């Protein structure tokens, strides 16, 4: 059990994890029945699926080549931008009234942080 074979098994585990999460997210995108639930599945493709594939690319570069870490930049970029785009798509769904509107806020007169006993 050399270090190269341990690295190979780590690459295989990351590749299988990322590929399976990509397929699962796409199946969820097709099979769910409601726009807001459909929004839930493909966000996993962006974070877990492609994140694992890029981690496998980093491990592959370290095991077989001279090592490079700059694939992690794409992981960081995807992790930062995925919630923003998901929020914009949810706003589009609310704008077209294709989902249930959120419940009205409670009829409080003051802020919760100010509502303390004297």
């Amino acid at each position, binding site marked *: 059990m050399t270090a190269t074979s341990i690295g190979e098994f780590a690459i295989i585990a990351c590749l299988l994890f990322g590929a399976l999460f990509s397929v699962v997210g796409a199946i969820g995108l*097709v099979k769910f029945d409601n726009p807001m639930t459909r929004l839930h599945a493909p966000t996993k493709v*962006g974070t877990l699926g492609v994140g694992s*594939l890029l981690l496998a690319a980093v491990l*592959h570069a370290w095991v077989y*080549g001279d090592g490079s870490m700059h694939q992690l930049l794409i992981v960081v970029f*995807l992790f930062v931008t995925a919630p923003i785009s998901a929020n*914009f*798509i949810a706003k*589009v769904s609310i704008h*077209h009234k294709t989902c249930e509107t959120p419940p009205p806020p409670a009829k409080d007169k003051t802020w919760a942080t100010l509502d303390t006993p004297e």
Partner: protein
Amino acid sequence: MTPDPTLVDWTIRFAFGAVAVAKILSLVRLIIGPTTSDRILALDTLTVNAIGLIVLLGIAQGTSIYFEASMIIAMLGFVSTVAYARFVLRGDIIE
């Protein structure tokens, strides 16, 4: 790639097939999607899967020269998703 395929090579081929199936399913949602948000979401998922395919190509060829291409596709995919959503929400992209 070595002439005799190892276990890593077979896993890379399986991952290529899996991401291709994911892209086909996203295309199905892009075509049948009843609402606009479904279509924007399907295009976003297609972009993310394209990044995955380019990264797999870089692993299969053992190079890291595809890093810039996948970085540019990640940035343009995010900007295009925000542009679609802003066009639907505001009727204009840059006000």
